């Protein structure tokens, strides 16, 4: 019976059999409860500010590009600790990105100089994020929020950029972010409530044990304020000893965790408040002589610099 052609038909028929469900008592129970169950407040900021935010976004865009460039470079290896002296290192050079010759990918990678949809809103409302691909060998599916250099984010020299930007505009819980109390024992340390503000998110990230969190630093990115820190996966972490063999920092919604690739990974987490919704960028890399090449770190900085966020209201 299980041929490809028959199975959908049989399945559909089986699912549509009458199973004698009676929902009325359930409704009665629910109605008895709602009189003592208040409706939750909305998390989203009101749309009345959108014009102001739009104005500010464009007014601040030029300055924000410079700020982000400094932020990313400061957090990459060889730079002083966040909050320290300004880095003398050269900033990423958008002009170099702009002058790169667009090239047709032959290996499935993204074309150099092309505009890439890093994240696309799932419904009519939400956040769109676009970036420019600064060099060869970047892989990522449009709208899925992940870029990897040479399709590899693993130790010792991989690099990747991940964004968590789902929103609660349409579906409750979709954009909720929960930061685990312990990234190794995440199954039993997921908090009961999501982080709702930049400060809550940064505090929860900073509190994770054994992550060597840097001090949080304020940042304004494309008109949206936030903070960043860097976390480290311990070099001696044994993932197989962790829950389900995964080392997780956070989970978005019910089913989108950030599971780290390998021990020793560094993650630059930037948390932004975008009209009341949290957007989290994770730039992942490795340090050391065998670590992520400096040229790739420069490219990640350029990607962040090029990013534009559009909140569709």
């Amino acid at each position, binding site marked *: 019976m*299980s041929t490809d052609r028959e199975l959908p038909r049989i*399945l559909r028929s089986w699912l549509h059999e009458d*199973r004698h469900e009676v*929902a009325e008592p*359930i*409704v009665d129970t629910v109605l008895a409860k*709602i009189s003592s169950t208040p409706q939750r407040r909305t998390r989203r900021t009101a749309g009345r500010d959108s014009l102001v935010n739009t104005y500010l976004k464009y007014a601040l865009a030029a300055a924000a590009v410079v700020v982000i460039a400094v932020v990313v470079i400061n957090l990459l290896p060889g730079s002083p600790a966040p909050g320290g002296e300004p880095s003398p290192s050269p900033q990423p050079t958008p002009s170099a990105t702009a002058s790169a010759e667009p090239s047709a990918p032959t290996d499935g990678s993204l074309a150099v100089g092309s505009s890439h949809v890093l994240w696309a809103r*799932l*419904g009519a409302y939400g956040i769109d994020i676009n970036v420019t691909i600064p060099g060869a060998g970047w892989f990522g599916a449009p709208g899925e929020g992940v870029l990897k250099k040479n399709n590899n984010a693993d130790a010792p020299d991989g690099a990747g950029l991940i964004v968590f930007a789902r929103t609660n505009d349409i*579906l409750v819980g979709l954009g909720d972010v929960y930061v685990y109390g312990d990234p190794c024992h995440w199954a039993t340390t997921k908090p009961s409530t999501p982080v709702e503000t930049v400060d809550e998110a940064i505090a929860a990230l900073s509190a994770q044990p054994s992550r060597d969190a840097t001090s949080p630093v304020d940042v304004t990115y494309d008109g949206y304020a936030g903070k960043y820190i860097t976390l480290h996966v311990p070099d001696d972490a044994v993932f197989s000893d962790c829950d389900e063999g995964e080392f997780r920092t956070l989970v978005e919604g019910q089913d989108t965790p950030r599971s780290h690739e390998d021990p020793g990974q560094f993650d630059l987490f930037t948390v932004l408040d975008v009209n009341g919704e949290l957007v989290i960028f994770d730039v992942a890399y490795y340090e050391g002589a065998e670590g992520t090449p400096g040229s790739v770190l420069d490219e990640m900085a350029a990607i962040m610099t090029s990013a534009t966020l559009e909140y569709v209201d």
Partner: protein
Amino acid sequence: MDTRLVIQAQGGDQEAFAELAATIADRFLATSHRILSDIDLAEDATQQALLSVWQDLSQLRDPARFEAWSYRLLVRACYAEGRKSRRWAPNLRLLPADEPMAADGLSAVVDRDQLERAFRHLSVKHRVVVVLHYFLDKPLDEIAEILGVPIGTAASRLHYAMQGLRKTLDADAAARSREVAG
């Protein structure tokens, strides 16, 4: 769906919510029953989902999207009940004793039995896409919206769910053949 009712309920109108709940409850229970394959768990999931609809209605941005939004809450409730199921429910083989005999006779009854067992072998996540697609007749883009995942992910889940069903059914058939041969 009557968006007027949705808007009134968003404003805290309990009578409007009562009408809304009565409209969706049967479908919720039928859907969760099929996902969870257990009427007690399905009733709990339906109750929790309806309560969540009431509590979180103010967060619904577009009343016209109520259906997708409410199914999202139901799916979440099913995930929660499914976790309880994994802890407590034995993996019983159910015989369709109270099911009407189909026109195509004994072989169809056996097929339903096999199908029930194969379906129970799927994860709740995979059962959800199967039920949304083959019971509620939701296209993949609507399933993706309900689940909050890209369309490709929804398609992938459905593909692997169907593949899983086929594998279990084929393994079952092979085992039966061996029994007969033995």
